């Protein structure tokens, strides 16, 4: 300790190059991996369709290339498999991003997108719409789920605030809120659903991509994209939370603003995804942890890596859910847990050396 440190700012070289290099280095390979996964999601299915035909159909629809294709196959590809795969990618990316954000800000390794009661609220909303017929068919199961999710989050956030506003309070309020809404869902199903409805709701709750069409794509993909860019804008702030909110404040982070913007955004993403495809577990919890092992804890890498891994993982899970049992689609949430839990266990064991 003998070189006195002088204070003050140094002149700083700014340049597009510093910004663009990581984009070229990681963004291009990332985009290629994502595209490959999307193509795989369209090609693989109950009836495998040749790769050339998939490309031809996409070219026809995107810029009217005019290739000769079978109309039924073209319909399967364009109206069914492509939107489904794109929504799977957006959901995976969005849930993984929400998981990273919540784990960073709540400082709890168990934080996941459903922590704040969003998924429980969504299921209650869905059940209220399907079983009680609230909204008279105007809202639909997705609309009901979204409203339920938003209500649950507002309730949980208000409770956490009333309890003092710390992250431990947020986690506890989330647990209380989730329990309450899950109990209401169970109560409603037990009281008024017939067996058919109960089964349908169960299926929806575990995640179901089969109803996905193009309008869902136009909702899910932009939301995931906005989420990604918002998170990228806050990577340094999220890093600064490593030693807690107060340390982040002393590093110049406007803690309250970052929390409101990022947690609000994570909730928005999660509520949208849950309302589109049901509550797919595991992605938001496990993908961020897995990516921490791969790229480390710094958010400048963790955010894009998690978004990409979440997207690819959910596309893969969707493929498996379609082809595992012939002629039957398994709920995708079951697949994510069945594939993800052992995979995560392996990562944990493999990485014990680091701890």
């Amino acid at each position, binding site marked *: 300790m003998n070189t*006195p440190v002088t204070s003050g700012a140094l002149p700083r070289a700014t340049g597009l190059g510093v910004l663009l290099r990581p984009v070229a280095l990681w963004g291009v390979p990332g985009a290629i991996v994502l595209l490959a996964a999307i193509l795989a999601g369209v090609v693989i299915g109950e009836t495998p369709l040749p790769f050339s035909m998939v490309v031809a159909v996409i070219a026809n629809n995107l810029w009217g290339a005019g290739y000769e294709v079978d109309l039924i196959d073209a319909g399967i590809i364009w109206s069914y498999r492509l939107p489904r795969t794109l929504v799977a990618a957006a959901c995976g990316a969005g849930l993984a991003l929400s998981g990273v954000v919540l784990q960073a800000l709540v400082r709890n390794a168990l934080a996941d997108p459903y922590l704040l009661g969003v998924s429980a609220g969504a299921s209650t909303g869905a059940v209220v719409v399907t079983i009680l017929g609230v909204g008279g068919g105007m809202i639909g199961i997705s609309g009901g789920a979204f409203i339920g999710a938003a209500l649950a989050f507002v309730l949980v956030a208000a409770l956490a605030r009333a309890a003092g506003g710390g992250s431990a309070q947020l986690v506890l309020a989330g647990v209380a809120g989730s329990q309450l809404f899950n109990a209401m869902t169970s109560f409603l199903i037990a009281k008024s659903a017939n067996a058919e409805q109960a089964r349908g709701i169960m299926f929806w709750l575990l995640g179901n991509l089969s109803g996905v069409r193009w309008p869902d794509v136009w909702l899910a993909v932009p939301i995931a994209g906005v989420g990604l860019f918002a998170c990228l804008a806050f990577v340094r702030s999220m890093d600064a939370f490593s030693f807690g909110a107060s340390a982040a404040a002393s590093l110049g982070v406007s803690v309250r603003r970052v929390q409101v913007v990022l947690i609000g955004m994570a909730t928005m993403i999660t509520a949208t995804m849950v309302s589109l495809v049901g509550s797919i577990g595991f992605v938001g919890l496990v993908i961020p942890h897995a990516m921490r092992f791969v790229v480390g804890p710094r958010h400048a890498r963790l955010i894009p890596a998690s978004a990409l891994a979440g997207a690819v993982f959910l596309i893969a899970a969707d493929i498996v859910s379609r082809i595992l049992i012939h002629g039957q689609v398994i709920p995708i949430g079951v697949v994510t847990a069945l594939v993800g839990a052992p995979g995560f266990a392996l990562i944990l064991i493999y990485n014990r050396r680091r701890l």
Partner: protein
Amino acid sequence: MRLSANRLGWAAGQRQIVSDVSLQIESGETFGLIGPNGSGKSTLLRLMAGLMPRAQGAVMLDDDPITKLPRPEIARRIAFVEQQVETSDALSVRDVVELGRTPWLSALAPFGSQDVEIVRDALSVVGMAEKVEQGWSTLSGGERQRVQIARALAQRPRLLLLDEPTTHLDIHHQLALLRLISRLSVTVIFALHDLNQAMNCDRLGVMEGGRLVACGTPPEVLTPERLASIFQVRATPLRDPADNSTLFRFHCLEE
């Protein structure tokens, strides 16, 4: 940078933890805060850093009220090393020190070669340059403290707030840190327990029960009566022939 605190206070529920502390710290000064456990030193430091919610009173940095400054601007002026910090993230030593650059960075000013240099300097100043790649959680207590000090130096602040920075350090690093502090051109305010180390400060403030009960040069402040009433010790002054400085040897006073 000059810091003036005017009637600072903080209450936890009904209990007043810090009351009515007014202080003026001059630019370049090294100011020591002493006082028994629980007397409010850490709380006062956090108040001066603008980190306490529901703070009473006002803090001015030079001519700016701290509440009017944006957070990043405060963090460019003040760096704070807390008594103890924890993280569950698997950060490396370099990651932790790079956090110190946070207030200087933005989308238009990304982490660049100057920042790399500042981080390297800060690490070598605290003697942690060889351990940049090591995991923060695997460091010893003293090493962690030195890394946090390096992080604070990487902030390039004009005011350093240090909460018991020498506590976990071995004797060599204690003396090295104190020498570093005395050489820094920045203003330093630090809490400490070693009254012999406190003798080297420009001025001392004594906290007791949340109040600033004395403030002045070390000989003015560390009188036998005060040592007896606040710290419950009796001190024998000894002279070190090496540099003719006065040292204290302390004896516990029983009640």
